[in-house]
Every structure is written in C-alpha cells, then in structure tokens.
C-alpha cells in the first residue's frame, strides 16, 4: 500500500524501480492549487486550438484546397467565392515565426503534464509522437504550402486537426488523472514521501 501511494504505477510497469522525485509528482496526487493550474491551462490550450480551427475555417475553409488557397491564392480559379492572393514571403515567414514561438510552448507543457499522468508507456509514447509530429508539421505548414505547392494543403490541414485532437486527448487524460481517477486523493505534503 505504501509503495502504491508513492505513485509507482509506471514503476510497476517498468519492473519496480524505486520511486524517485519524478514519480512522486504524478497528477493524481497533486494538491488542489496545482490541479487548478494544470486543469485551467489545458482547458485554454484546447480552446485555443479550437479557435485556430475556427480561424482557418473562416479565413478560407477547412479543406486541403482551402488551406492551399490561403497561402497560394486562388486568382486562377473562376469559381472561387472569395478572391485570395498568394501571401508575400514575409507574411509566410511571420506565420512560421509566430507558430514556432507560441505554438511550441503549449505542446511542451502538454507533454510535460502527460508525462506525469498514469498513461501506460506505449500509449504515452504514441500520443507524444503524434503531438510532436503534428506540432512540427503545423509550424512548417505555411512555408511548405507556399513554396512546396498545393500538395501540402492536405498534410497542413491534417497537422492542424491532428494537433488539436492530440492536445484534446492529452488534456482528457490529464483531467481524468487529476479529478476522476479513484486514487485521486489527499494533497501531497512536501517533504513527506507519502500522500497524506
């Protein structure tokens, strides 16, 4: 029982290695304040990605062709409902720059929190790979479409949708650990190896 209270779920899976500082900071054993912090930031990350999808939908649409049109323009399309011009290189680079700076931090935070969840090793790794891969592709997407051609429209859209979905899935896992997991219990008291 004492070993279990030291948050050894992953340790059990890994063959019973001693619980260290990392395993003591699992989500379900956090104090109320940290749960509020982590739950709230994940909530806004999920909302933010949803807003990003809504933004894309309103800008040009949520189809690979629409994504390509946004960066490459659609002046040659006689059936286009709204005329779009190819984005200037500095605007494309501006988009990539912004995504690099502000898009990476939510992914890092989400990954860090996911790491502290009780998700088993294999699903954790799979979700982490999807999270990082979609984030990298989403960051590079404007440049890929602008200079790589319309064929990158589908991967760009898939990256944006995939990133939003993986952040939402990660958030759901973390929320479950913090609030719904049966072992989610008393606060962890600093300096004491066991939950109170």
């Amino acid at each position, binding site marked *: 029982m004492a070993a279990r209270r030291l948050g050894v779920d992953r340790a059990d899976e890994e063959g019973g290695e001693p619980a260290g*500082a990392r395993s*003591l*900071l699992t989500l379900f054993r*956090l*104090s*109320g*304040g*940290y749960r*509020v*912090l982590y739950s*709230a*930031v994940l*909530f*806004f*990350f999920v*909302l*933010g990605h949803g*807003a*990003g999808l*809504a*933004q894309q939908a*309103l*800008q040009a649409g949520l189809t690979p062709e629409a994504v390509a049109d946004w960066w490459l323009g659609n002046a040659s399309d006689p059936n286009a409902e709204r005329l779009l011009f190819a984005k200037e290189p500095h605007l494309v680079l501006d988009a990539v720059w912004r995504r690099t700076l*502000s898009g990476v*931090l*939510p992914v890092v*935070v989400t990954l860090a929190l996911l790491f502290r969840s009780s998700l088993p090793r294999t699903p954790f790794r799979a979700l982490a790979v999807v999270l990082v891969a979609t984030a990298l592709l989403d960051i590079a997407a404007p440049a890929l479409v602008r200079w790589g051609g319309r064929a990158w429209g589908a991967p760009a859209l898939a990256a944006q949708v995939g990133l939003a979905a993986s952040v939402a899935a990660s958030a759901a896992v973390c929320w479950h650990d913090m609030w719904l997991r049966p072992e989610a219990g008393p*606060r*962890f*008291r*600093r*300096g004491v190896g066991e939950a109170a």
Partner: protein
Amino acid sequence: MTQYFTYDGFALHRAPTQVKALLTAFIAVVTISVGVGVVNYQVRTGLTAPGSAAWYRGAPSGSGAGEAAARTREDAAGGPLATTPLREKSPLELLDATHPHLFNQAFLFFVLGHVVALCAVRSRRKMALYVAGFLAVLLDTASPWLIRYVSPSLAWLQLTGHALMAGAFAGMVGYPLREMWLRGESGQAGDREG
C-alpha cells in the same frame, strides 16, 4: 517548477540570488507587457463600457460612444486624417485576437501561478489567485463575442474581466516579489503547497 517542491526546506526567500534575479526579471518584463496590453485596450475602447461596445459593434463617427474609442490616423506628411468611424468586427477579426489570447494569457497565469505556488502564502489565497486569473482570461476572451453578438450592455463584463485580471496579476507578481526581497530569514513560514 514543481520539482522545487521536493527539495526539503526550499523557500523562495532563501533561493539563490540568480534564481531571484531570473524570476524578478521575468516579472518585470511581463509587467511591462501587461502594461502595453492595458494601453492597447485603452486606445481601442477607452476602457469604458460605451467604448467597448462601440469598438466591437461599431459606431458612426461623431457619435458619443464612437468618439470615446475613435482612432485618428496620420497621413504621410504627419497631418491627421479624418477620424475613422468604427465598424462592427467580423468573426475573423474577433478570432484574430481570441486565438492568441487563449494561449498567451493562459500560459502567463500558468507560469505566474507556479511562482506563487512557491510562496509562503495560505493555500486558499493562492487558489483564489489562480481561479481569479483564469476566470479573468475567460472573461477577456468571451466578452468581445458577447458584446458583439449578444448585447452591448454586456460591455461591463469586459471591464469586470480587466479589473479581475489586474487584481490577480498584481497578487501573482506582488507575493513573489515580497517573498524574494522583503521577507527575511525570520519571516513566517506559511503554507508552501500549491
């Protein structure tokens, strides 16, 4: 930051000087950035309910509400052009602000919350700061949409969000600064749990 939690006897006021310097520099820069944000709102809405309503719902030039938030642009020679009448904001224009705010404001309070968590402040007060901060973010991102698409009378909601955010921010920078620079060794050891 949570790993500091496991260091026996860690207290922010006893942290190494370089840690204090780093946190203080961070707090100083975000204070400036929040200040710029306040100026942004003041220029656009006048930080008034009529100004907010006019900014998001539009107002013709010369109207009382519109003048509170009307912008005047200068031409190339530096002379003022006609005051720009405000027009209603489109969903895309609202999203252009909502999208980054959701990430950046939440992340700001997330980081500040971790710093506050290391302070010797009662847990309830910390929790109140966290809840206030994130509630303010919610109000700040939702209120433009409510003003634009529900009713201009909800502009007070945005002002409430501003005030709440200012209060939460002041607490989240004030407590760490007090802890680091004004609390001596003999300071009361409070509740250092998050």
